[in-house]
């Protein structure tokens, strides 16, 4: 495959079958390898789409400074895109994210402002909104509410899935900004409405939910509950166990959020088997495991790995 530039190569990711994890010939699992994007993450799609959209709207002019609240992956993708397109990037990132994320942001030339660990990404969003108000010349693309984020998946991820797997019955992805699920969900509602759209939401340690009061809760502006069929909360123990199974049985070295998604996908698969229904379940491999090596999740017992993730924003 040949592309004019690195940015032109974003997307078009492989969909691979999982012969060992699939429970039967009638109930099959398929992994969409988003780690094959330029920075190794599904977020490259949203980052590129948001930047191109802002350029088209005239919001981004040469040399502009971008500001973004991120737990890391979107920041890394934006840093890569910003460098190619000639922008500065400042990321607001919670301090309880893996060391590799900060290193990668530095490699692509982004600056990091840390937000307090307690409150997780909520705090990053709050700090970034404050900085945006103080610095009106900075451009905050704001992944949680930017329609271009979901549109990237509506225009690309969804059609790629349908082309590669016309028999698809379920789509499973992580729920963060909700961009992947909203875009792919909207695409299937229009093109194959019987496809179930399943959200796997990471359940972090308590520190991350350390809000001062419930009115500080956060729901991304992009979120439209009517596009989802169901939504599962997956804790670190199940996420790590499935991340390791994916590596052990299918050879796919993925990050921990992918384990959470696989856990939900296997739950759906088990229900299909019990109901004697056939199913083709596609799920997103959000990123590779490289960025999580320092967390220790690939070593030692499951209990040790769970302890290592306590208080971390692992997805």
């Amino acid at each position, binding site marked *: 495959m040949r592309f004019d530039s690195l940015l032109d190569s974003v997307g078009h990711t492989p969909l691979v079958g999982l012969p060992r994890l699939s429970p039967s010939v009638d109930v099959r699992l398929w992994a969409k390898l988003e780690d094959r994007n330029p920075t190794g993450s599904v977020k490259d799609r949203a980052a590129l789409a948001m930047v191109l959209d802002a350029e088209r709207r005239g919001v981004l002019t040469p040399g502009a400074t971008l500001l973004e609240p991120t737990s890391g992956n979107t920041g890394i993708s934006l840093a890569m895109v910003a460098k190619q397109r000639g922008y500065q990037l400042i990321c607001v990132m919670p301090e309880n994210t893996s060391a590799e994320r900060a290193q990668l942001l530095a490699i692509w030339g982004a600056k990091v402002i840390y937000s307090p660990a307690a409150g997780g990404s909520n705090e990053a969003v709050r700090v970034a909104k404050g900085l945006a108000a103080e610095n009106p010349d900075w451009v905050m693309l704001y992944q949680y509410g930017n329609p271009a984020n979901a549109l990237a998946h509506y225009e690309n991820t969804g059609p790629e899935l349908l082309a590669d797997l016309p028999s698809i019955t379920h789509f499973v992805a992580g729920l963060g900004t909700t961009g992947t699920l909203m875009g792919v969900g909207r695409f299937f509602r229009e093109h194959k409405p019987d496809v179930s759209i399943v959200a796997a939401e990471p359940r972090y340690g308590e520190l991350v939910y350390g809000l001062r009061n*419930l009115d*500080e809760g956060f729901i991304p502006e992009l979120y439209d509950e009517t596009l989802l069929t169901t939504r599962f909360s997956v*804790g670190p123990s199940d996420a790590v166990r499935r991340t390791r199974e994916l590596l052990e049985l299918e050879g796919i070295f993925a990050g921990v959020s992918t384990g959470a998604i696989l856990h939900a996908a296997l739950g759906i698969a088990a229900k299909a088997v019990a109901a004697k229904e056939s199913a083709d379940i596609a799920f997103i491999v959000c990123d590779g495991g490289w960025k999580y090596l320092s967390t220790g999740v690939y070593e030692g017992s499951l209990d040790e790995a769970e302890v290592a993730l306590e208080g971390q924003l692992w997805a």
Partner: protein
Amino acid sequence: MSIEVRIPTILRPYTSGEKLVTAQGITLAEVISDLEINYPGIGERLIDENGLRRFINIYVNDEDVRFLDGLQSVIADNDSITILPAVAGG
């Protein structure tokens, strides 16, 4: 019959700091009513006149009740209920 309910940090002032409490009921609404009897004040932090509060998520065996039958979701013995505030990911 007894159901385990996980309480988030922000609501533990109502449960004397307990993370895990037990409650009874055949539907989620009944379980919340039972919680209110033992931990007065907790009910209105979970529910308002429109039903489940906007920034509260409740999961029965890890499945979001908004995609089950909401407050009328049927709870079976040994089910586990988790209450969490809505937070940002990404």
